């Protein structure tokens, strides 16, 4: 690990201001992703701003009947919250399908959203990787790509976003609330939050430099039946090959987001009206523009089967 200076901040405004004052700094939340990457010198901040003790660790009901989830709330506490378990089961299910008990105790809402890809070449500093070293090339495109993206990828990067929680947040139309060093608050719908790789795969979200996530806001409960099906190589403590988060409504419509297939949770609201036509029709439409590799083309069929299972359960 490269050496760094460290400070602890006590308010969100202080955190954003500290980041503006210290070029090359990073926010440290749980640290379960950042420290891992720093040990490998994939991330090399010169200064860490520890936001772990900010009072952004609560869940509040919003005036409109939704939930405001603090950026620093642990994944365990979010999944165990009674309102979440009753009204946003898709979110609790997605969280509980991720990582391990120990990691969920430490991982935070914002850190989970911003965790970086698990592309094996991103982790191997001997390999070219445009995400890690912009302009160096992409070892994955000609390498082992079984775990990587099938849609939304570019000639510069085919990595996926590894978060389970973000898939549920996408299906729920969550809104990300931030503050910048000038104290300006911004609301970013999750559909606009992640960027596809294009030519700049190292820029992963629309967050500005030094912008701090303060909370994630959920709209009022939409009702319906909630599902999160994660398909992986072992049945616990493993990242998804694919995952399907779905909320099915009585009228046959649904809110469906898919994980493990792209640089962001994949959702296309405009085709959700074809959900009643079945998993095959929906999956075909969702992946109409897919460009899988030979090794990962199976993921599309996996999504179809996972969705098929969900629709069956929904009907019974």
């Amino acid at each position, binding site marked *: *690990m490269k*050496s*760094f*200076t*460290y*400070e*602890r901040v006590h308010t969100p405004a202080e955190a954003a201001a*500290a980041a503006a*004052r*210290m*070029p*090359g700094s990073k926010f*440290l939340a*749980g*640290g*379960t992703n950042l*420290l*891992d990457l720093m*040990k490998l010198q994939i991330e090399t901040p*010169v*200064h*860490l701003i*520890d936001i*772990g*003790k900010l009072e952004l660790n609560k869940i509040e009901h919003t005036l409109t009947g939704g939930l405001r989830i603090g950026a620093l709330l642990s994944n*365990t506490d979010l*999944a*165990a919250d*009674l309102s979440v*378990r*009753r009204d946003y*089961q898709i979110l*609790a*299910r997605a969280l*509980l*399908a991720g*990582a*391990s*008990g*120990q*990691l969920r*105790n*430490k991982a935070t809402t914002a850190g989970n959203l911003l965790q970086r890809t698990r592309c094996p070449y991103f982790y191997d500093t001997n390999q070219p990787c445009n995400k890690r070293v912009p302009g160096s090339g992409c070892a994955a495109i000609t390498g082992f790509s079984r775990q990587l993206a099938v849609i939304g990828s570019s000639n510069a990067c085919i990595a996926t976003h590894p978060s389970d929680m973000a898939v549920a947040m996408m299906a729920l139309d969550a809104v990300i609330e931030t503050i910048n060093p000038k104290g300006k608050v911004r609301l970013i719908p999750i559909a606009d939050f992640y960027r596809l790789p294009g030519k700049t795969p190292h820029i992963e979200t629309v967050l500005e430099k030094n912008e701090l996530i303060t909370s994630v806001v959920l709209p009022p409960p939409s009702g319906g039946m909630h599902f999160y099906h994660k398909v992986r190589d072992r049945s*616990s*403590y493993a990242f998804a090959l694919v995952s399907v988060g779905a909320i099915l409504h009585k009228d046959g419509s649904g809110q469906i987001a898919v994980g493990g297939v792209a640089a962001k949770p994949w959702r296309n609201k405009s085709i959700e009206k074809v959900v009643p036509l079945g998993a095959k029709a929906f999956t075909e439409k969702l992946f109409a523009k897919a460009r899988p590799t030979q090794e990962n083309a199976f993921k599309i069929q996996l999504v179809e089967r996972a969705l098929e299972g969900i629709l069956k359960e929904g009907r019974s």
Partner: protein
Amino acid sequence: MKDSKKLILTRREMIVGTATAVTVSLGAGTIEKVESLTINSADIVPSATINFNVNGKAQQLNLDTRTTLLDSLREHLQLTGTKKGCDHGQCGACTVLVNGRRINSCLSLALQHEGDNIVTIEGLGTPDKLHPMQAAFVKHDGYQCGYCTPGQICSAVAVLQEIKAGIPSHVSEDLTLQPEFSNMEVRERMSGNICRCGAYSNIAEAMAEVNSHLS
């Protein structure tokens, strides 16, 4: 090194910027060193003081900022019961309890634990007075080589508390109900602790025994 100048500048700013901050302690010696430094950024080793409580004892340590909680326990407090397996959050050998909750101490900086209460395997029980979970591991052969065992035991103790506290898991069927102890729950909840010797089924039996005494 073309960015050494920038680095020095930012470190100076840092020192100026935190002169009044109580949580960061950079000695005057470090400042001089920064100013006389010309090339090698590796020479600057920022350090800071941390106060926490380990196994009931208050501790104050001055540490290189990079020190993980795991290394602070093993290398600075000589509490070598907690093990380093992977150092990347993938095995659970480093599991300790922080304010009653289990975490991977390898993926946490010691500095993140100002004021925290930490319990390691040494704090759970002693050879003369074993914690019930330690006794049950011995009785049920919950280990072979023993390397993963301190992490397994800390995790196992926390799992029983998590079930009691109503925290659901991936295999809990109805999320709105209080979860109940079962073999499936144990297998899912203990998945963050890998055992190369494959003592899993015996660990589950040890946990079942301790659980039966609890309820």
